[in-house]
């Protein structure tokens, strides 16, 4: 039975309003929220892309560098969000030499960039830069989410340049029954969208992500914020995450067109029908060791979408790591910090 009385509700609402009033003042004083904490240096630039090297902190460094290829959607500082939530820091501490591609923010002059530009040119040039710089014939690649799909394409096309491949929360089969993003985009006229916008606005993609759980992500989350509004540390953590969620770069039009149509709508990656530039991607050409990391409660990239890689690759050394968490938790949860970077590092260092 509802034990609530009007008096009790009025008391709660008074308390809530008072905390809200204090909270708004605190928010006004908190200043800029920084994200991305580990020291790094830019080592290569091309167009809007910047290749960073994170400064090593372990006494012994593995000679083969690891290049992180993040998604084009959202910003890569999720991998290095704050002191106690940094996948990159975990890898550095384990002795991995970490590099990361920051794609920057595409603008009108980038609307004609294709997936061919991203895979052959941008990833290709970064990989070649590291191979030359470090005198390595091949390097390690870690692709994250959409960046994982791009990494699969690159590694299939240039297997001789990739020593080991790690994919993280990476969609491979886009037509598993539980893939909600595919369900949402299936009836969207992607050609009309790209022809109309040029570059696809980040706000549109943000809407799609929030629409998966609007009562929690756009309502309850802010009501709950009042509970921690006087805890400066917790408030900054919240704002850091908010910054990341809302920091959605526009998507280069032609690359978006191909990714949305070929990967999401037509599921060509699993059919061996994706063409990057003039070359066809065949996942059976993935002959290097592969570690496929997925999140068991991932609502964006369902585990089945990632695990499809098992039956499609040509590697004799394929393994999976299941993380008990979601698509965001795999980067920032306490459990992730304890489990994921050490496991990836151990897998890499053993090869």
């Amino acid at each position: 039975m509802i034990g609530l009385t009007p008096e009790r509700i009025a008391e709660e609402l008074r308390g809530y309003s008072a905390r809200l009033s204090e909270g708004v003042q605190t928010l006004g004083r908190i200043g800029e929220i920084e994200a991305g904490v580990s020291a790094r240096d830019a080592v290569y630039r091309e167009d809007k892309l910047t290749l960073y090297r994170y400064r090593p902190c372990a006494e012994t460094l593995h000679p083969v560098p690891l290049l992180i290829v993040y998604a084009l959607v959202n910003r890569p500082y999720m991998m290095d969000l704050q002191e106690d939530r940094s996948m990159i820091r975990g890898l550095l501490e384990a002795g991995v030499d970490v590099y990361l591609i920051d794609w920057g923010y595409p603008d009108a002059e980038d609307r004609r960039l294709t997936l061919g530009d991203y895979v052959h040119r941008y990833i290709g040039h970064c990989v070649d830069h590291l191979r030359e710089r470090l005198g390595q014939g091949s390097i390690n690649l870690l692709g994250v989410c959409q960046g994982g799909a791009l990494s699969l394409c690159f590694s299939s096309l240039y297997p001789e340049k990739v020593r080991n491949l790690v994919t993280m929360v990476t969609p491979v089969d886009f037509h598993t029954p539980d893939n909600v993003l595919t369900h949402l985009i299936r009836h969207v006229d992607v050609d009309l969208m790209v022809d109309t916008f040029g570059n696809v606005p980040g706000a549109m993609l943000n809407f799609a992500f929030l629409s998966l759980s609007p009562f929690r992500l756009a309502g309850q989350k802010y009501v709950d914020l009042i509970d921690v509004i006087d805890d400066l540390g917790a408030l900054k953590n919240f704002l850091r995450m908010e910054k990341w969620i809302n920091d959605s770069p526009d998507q280069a039009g032609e690359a978006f067109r191909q990714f949305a149509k070929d990967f999401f709508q037509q599921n060509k990656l699993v059919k061996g029908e994706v063409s990057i530039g003039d070359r066809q991607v065949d996942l059976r050409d993935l002959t290097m060791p592969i570690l496929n990391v997925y999140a068991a409660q991932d609502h964006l990239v369902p585990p089945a979408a990632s695990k499809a890689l098992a039956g499609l690759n040509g590697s004799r050394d394929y393994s999976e790591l299941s993380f008990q968490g979601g698509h965001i938790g795999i980067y920032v949860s306490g459990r992730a910090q304890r489990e994921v970077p050490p496991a990836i590092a151990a897998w890499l260092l053993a090869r």
Partner: protein
Amino acid sequence: MSDQTETPTAPPNPFDAEFLIKQARSYLAFGEQMSAFSAQLHGRFQDGEDWGSMLRQNFDRFKAATLGSVEDAGTASEHDQLWTQMLELWRQSVSAIGLGAPVGGETDAWRGYMQVQDQYLDLLRQSASAALDLLEQRLRDRAATGKSIDSLRELYNLWVDCNEKTYGQMLRGAEYGELNGRLFNSLLQCYSKREARP
């Protein structure tokens, strides 16, 4: 090439306190609505009426307001702020990318878009109504096991759970997928230079 702090041409993305305030207003509206509900429930319960039937009457009233089938402007307006979360998100996104009603009068394409938006709203209404059914059922289940709801936040969280549940079911359905596509396409058609398809 040392570059420890630079982020390539990052646009500012400050946290918008207005958004927090907006959600807080919705929560306060929820509280006021539940306060009226609670007053009615307790007053009539003391008069000896059956708790279950009173609960049903109140939820019937909420549902009617949600579905827009009664003239109860006060209740509907408060309720709107809560269950139209999704439509509000859509409108904010459309506004954020600078799309709005065409200058110089409504076009056929714009009217077509508004019709699709109305259909979208109808689907959201059905989901919200189903959430109220679920909430009522959960309250009955709790009552049957002697569990009480002792705070507004607890009731709000339960209401959110119910809405996420019914919304999630709707989201994964074929009708929503098709309508979501038409919502995007009809909006884009308003700004497209491409000739309308037959």
